[in-house]
């Protein structure tokens, strides 16, 4: 039987933990709203970019030798670059762990097929996890820790780095692994192939124009060589934003759960406390009464 004092201390410590978790939940909720707005705001660009890319890709034969490698890849399927996107902070439930697990599973699968795997980690948590698990495959990491809002230019550097690596033939296929924000309580681990770029379905553009073809200025290939790196950056940007929104959603849910857990715990502990207190009083009474009877 724990003493009254130790019970009191337990209750107080759980209470202050509850205060922290409920404050974190509030913060996550307000950050989530902002992150969601940012995802929404970035959508129009991505949609239009996809439309243009569809029109361009349709007008260029993908088997031509001059087709840019960002679109068609290097023609090989040997070295895979994985880009897992995680948060920089923990306390968000399984948010970071699920990306780590998915990346590890993907890496194992690829390696069992005889492929080479390289990992470029975005976010501190993923970096730490993968450094423990798959240290030999790590080739670098990027972190946006400390930024209030991730801007497009931040991501552009990463996209450039990936493009340069592709031109140096350091990998053949690039895949993003990130948490797609579905709702506050559910984030879906998504594997998205970036290079070679999956060509968006192009029937919408042609339908819209009644089959009329676009004019290009300058020629298709020049535009494509400029548009593709931009598209890469936009895809990564979108994934990063989704991941940020997912992170806050996951944290909000996790903190909501722990606030509720702390509440339950407080209830149980105070019950124990009251019982112990009453037992003490009863015991004292019995002592007094039996003392009086003995006289």
């Amino acid at each position: 039987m724990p003493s009254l004092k130790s019970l009191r201390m337990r209750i107080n410590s759980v209470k202050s933990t509850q205060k922290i978790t409920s404050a974190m939940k509030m913060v996550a909720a307000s950050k989530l709203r902002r992150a969601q707005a940012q995802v929404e705001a970035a959508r129009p660009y991505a949609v239009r970019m996809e439309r243009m890319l569809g029109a361009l890709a349709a007008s260029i034969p993908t088997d031509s030798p001059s087709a840019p490698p960002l679109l068609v890849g290097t023609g090989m399927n040997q070295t895979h670059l994985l880009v897992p996107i995680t948060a920089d902070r923990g306390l968000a439930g399984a948010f970071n762990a699920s990306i780590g697990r998915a990346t590890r599973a993907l890496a194992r699968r690829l390696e069992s097929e005889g492929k080479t795997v390289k990992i470029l980690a975005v976010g501190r948590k993923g970096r730490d996890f993968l450094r423990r698990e798959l240290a030999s495959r790590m080739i670098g990491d990027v972190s946006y820790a400390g930024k209030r809002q991730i801007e497009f230019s931040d991501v552009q550097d990463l996209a450039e780095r990936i493009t340069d690596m592709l031109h140096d033939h350091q990998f053949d296929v690039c895949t993003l692994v990130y948490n797609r924000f579905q709702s506050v309580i559910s984030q879906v681990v998504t594997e998205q192939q970036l290079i070679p770029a999956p060509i968006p379905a192009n029937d919408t553009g042609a339908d819209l124009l009644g089959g009329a073809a676009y004019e290009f200025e300058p020629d298709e290939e020049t535009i494509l060589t400029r548009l593709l790196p931009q598209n890469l950056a936009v895809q990564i940007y979108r994934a990063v934003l989704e991941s940020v929104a997912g992170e806050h959603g996951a944290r909000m849910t996790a903190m909501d759960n722990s606030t509720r857990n702390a509440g339950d715990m407080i209830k149980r502990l105070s019950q124990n406390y009251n019982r112990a207190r009453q037992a003490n009083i009863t015991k004292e009474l019995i002592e007094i009464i039996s003392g009086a009877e003995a006289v």
Partner: protein
Amino acid sequence: MPVALEIVSPEKLLLSRPVDMVVIPAWEGEMGVLPGHAPAIVMLRGGVIALYQGDQITDRLYVSGGFAEVTPERCTVLANEVRPVAELTRAEAETRMGAAVLAFESAGKEDTAAQEAGMDQIQAAQAMADAIS
């Protein structure tokens, strides 16, 4: 019938409104877009987008480069940097020009891509200076 003009940056939709005509700085020269323009996808160099209402220019926006999609009904501009011309300063144009010249000169002789990128930067900085005067 007006042209539905949209200017979008990766971060957000910056402007969406009908205009009578818009002049965009296309790769091979200024391009005026009126309703019913033939469908086109063009690359933009650094320059000024001018919005027309009737014969009057209502807004002048500087872009440092990007892409545009033109169809008979609409004109969509994708640009990384969009700023009203009134916001630009000569000092900024000069710093940019300095940085651009430096980037061009530091590019290796063999590295044509870097040279081209430097060239584009110079061109965009020049356009910014021109837009002010």
